[in-house]
């Protein structure tokens, strides 16, 4: 349930290997770019405080491994997410093609109560690179078909549009959190005898 005091927005970044998930997160949180980021193993996250409409919220941005076979671990990390950021590389067509499966897989594993209204944001990263394989128009079309998902073209390397994109992500996540009391299916009320740890963490305790 949404807490009245401190607002924590959990954001999950997903997308194929090497599209720039770690770089986007680091550019946004630390305003730094490095060529030396290693492939992410498991998961990690960074937090950043932002002010939205005079409200201070903490964004917890989760970075995960991009290779398909590590997705089965996602359930432990996706739980309680307020927004999901899908990333593709505008110079690599395959990374665009995988977007559908990333979105579907997220919805299956995170199991939000209203999958159709769950906030997603799409980022087309590496716009500083040539040649471009996926046009803005094509990406926008895809977004339109997905409940008008917001789309941003970014360059984590040059810090282009990154701030704006994450601000939109935060706003979407916050709007969603305010709108519906809880995004996730809860157990029956009686279960609260156990004083569950996470406010909106429905689902299983184990992904095995």
């Amino acid at each position, binding site marked *: 349930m949404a807490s009245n005091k401190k607002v924590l927005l959990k954001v999950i970044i997903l997308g194929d290997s*090497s599209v720039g998930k770690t770089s986007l997160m680091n550019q946004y949180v630390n305003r730094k770019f490095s060529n030396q980021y290693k*492939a992410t*193993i*498991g998961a990690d996250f960074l937090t950043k405080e932002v002010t939205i409409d005079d409200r201070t919220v903490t964004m917890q941005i989760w970075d995960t491994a991009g*290779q398909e*076979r590590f997705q089965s671990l996602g359930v432990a990390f996706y739980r309680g997410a307020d927004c999901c950021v899908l990333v593709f590389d505008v110079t690599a067509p395959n990374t665009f093609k995988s977007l559908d499966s990333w979105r579907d897989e997220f919805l299956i594993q995170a199991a939000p109560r209203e999958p159709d209204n769950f906030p997603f944001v799409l980022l087309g990263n590496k716009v500083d690179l040539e040649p471009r394989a996926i046009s803005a128009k094509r990406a926008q079309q895809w977004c339109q078909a997905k409940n008008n998902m917001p789309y941003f073209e970014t360059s984590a390397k040059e810090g282009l549009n990154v701030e704006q994109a994450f601000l939109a992500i935060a706003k979407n996540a916050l709007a969603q959190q305010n709108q519906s009391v809880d995004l996730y299916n809860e157990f*029956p009320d*009686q279960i609260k005898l156990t004083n569950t740890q996470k406010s909106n963490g429905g689902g*299983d305790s184990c992904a095995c």
Partner: protein
Amino acid sequence: MEDEFDDYQDVFSQDGVLLRQAPSAYIQYINTIGTLYIWETLENEACHSKKRLLEWKPNDVTVDSDVQDQEWAVVNTVQKRVRTLSGNLPPDYYARLKNLKINFEDIKSFRIANKSRQLTFFDGTSDSICSLLFQHGNCEVLVSILRSFLKFGPSRRDKHLFVIYDADSPEYQELNKTFAALDFKNENSLWTLFKNIKEHPYEGSLEAFSKVTNYVYRSVDANEAEFLQQDDLNRSLSEIDDSSTVHSGGDYELVQKLPQLPKRKDFPRCRPLTEEQWREQFNYEGRLEDVESIKTLIFRGGVTPSIRKEVWKFLLDYHPWNSTSAERQKCNSTKSEEYYLMKLQWKSFTKTQEDNFSDFAQRKSLIDKDVNRTDRNLDFYAGDNNFNLTTLNDILMTYVMYNFDLGYVQGMSDLLSPLLMLLEHESDTFWCFVGFMNKLISNFDIDQAGMKEQLANLYTLLAFIDPFLANYLETHECANMFFCFRWLLVWFKRELKQDDVMRFWEVLWTGYPCQNFHLLVGVAILEQERGALMENNYGFTEILKHINELNGKLDMSLMLNKAEGIFYQLKESDHLTDNIRFILGLPLLSQQTSANHSISPDSSANHSQPRCSVDHVRISPESDEAVYDRSITTNFL
């Protein structure tokens, strides 16, 4: 809902519950998945106490259906307490029933097994009422709900067995009185007591429970004496020393007696294997004379860097330990030929071939991306157009041709990088990499079964060595151990500095002192961090962050020292269970008594990781019990 349930409300339900054992009337539902409910009578002034029952419904009966659920009955396995909800049943009734029902009054004890995945209810006779396997999550929530309705405590004979105190029994009454006398915020219900303690986790509960532990103990004993009349256990129980422990911090509290592990010894690391020690072991043919003592020296202290190049080829099974120098020379040339043959295969692909072979192209692109971000902070791989990156790439590409079923999985470039840095020879590095991959190939399973198994094994070991911490993790939804994923996938490569990685790996490659020794290293680290995790009351998120941030801060020698200490504690402990023995590759107790045990000795003796399923490793409670009984017999009778 159903007619019979007019007066009832459901207070709990959990789906994904598999019926493992049940009365013969339910035989057709064995191994069927269903949903478990707890029903409770509505407020009724006529009845001073509420009736409650457990119900298991197979999945093919929809939960909302009003029609099918008419056919149900209470399973009354205890004849002397006939309390059905629907009166007397026709004799053929059991043949038609679908849903398994158990009155709370009929439950005399229950046993939790399989890391809280399996729950078995007993009616006080030797037979179980039913056994349930929780496929989604575990039975912990259910048990904590039961805790609010029933008074029970752990059995002394078996810490996984919980004995229900009969409401009419003096134990129950006295237990109530005792708790009332303790004056916990004027509440005398056990449930509230536990809840209070939960809100003030550690110190509070320890202090509070120290008052009641002794009482609970006596109470359990008295109850159990009746419950286990047929078992001549009293003698053995009195022999167990008097260390009792309180688990707290979660949804329910365990007051239990923990068996003591032997005292941990210190195993400081020794000096690395010297060049002199190494050379003097070769005979006139260039064959190593005493392989075991060489391996022992390496396990204790690693290898002097000047001879690493040579020693690693043995450790990674490129050069057989019993080979002569002539055989090794021959091996080098034939293996080199084989390598370049495989390399030529992918090198000679035309553009069209690649375009028509998307599986291959995908792997190629993934390798290209990962090679460009592998250890670029090290001089060896730094800078643009670094030739070493090309070699790294070529070896990984050739490995794809060598093992196309596996291909390339993220993490493999991390494993390869230190090998190439040391050996600086393409085909030698390739074959050493093959040897390394053979040791942990299950880490890269497509369904991640190998990793899940390792994480589960890590938890099992931790639960045995540090039940406090394991219980803490379990009650904080961390029992999946996912925060250790990176450790295990690439054998701590990301956590240690390059020199330490080399030392650490060569120690592990010896296979000493047991298989899966790296899991004991994991346990040692967790044990070291337990204070930070528990005192800060970290949940999954914070624990993951904390563990990720240990990167670069671990004292590898200290961890090996502790891990070896833990190994000997386990080995010398007299209550070591078969599932721990299996993980570590130690001889199984059950094999010594029963010839047809389901686990073959070959699989545990195998050099590589056992490739069995997770369920297989989590040995069934039956065998646990067998082990226990055996140890009781040998130790006390």
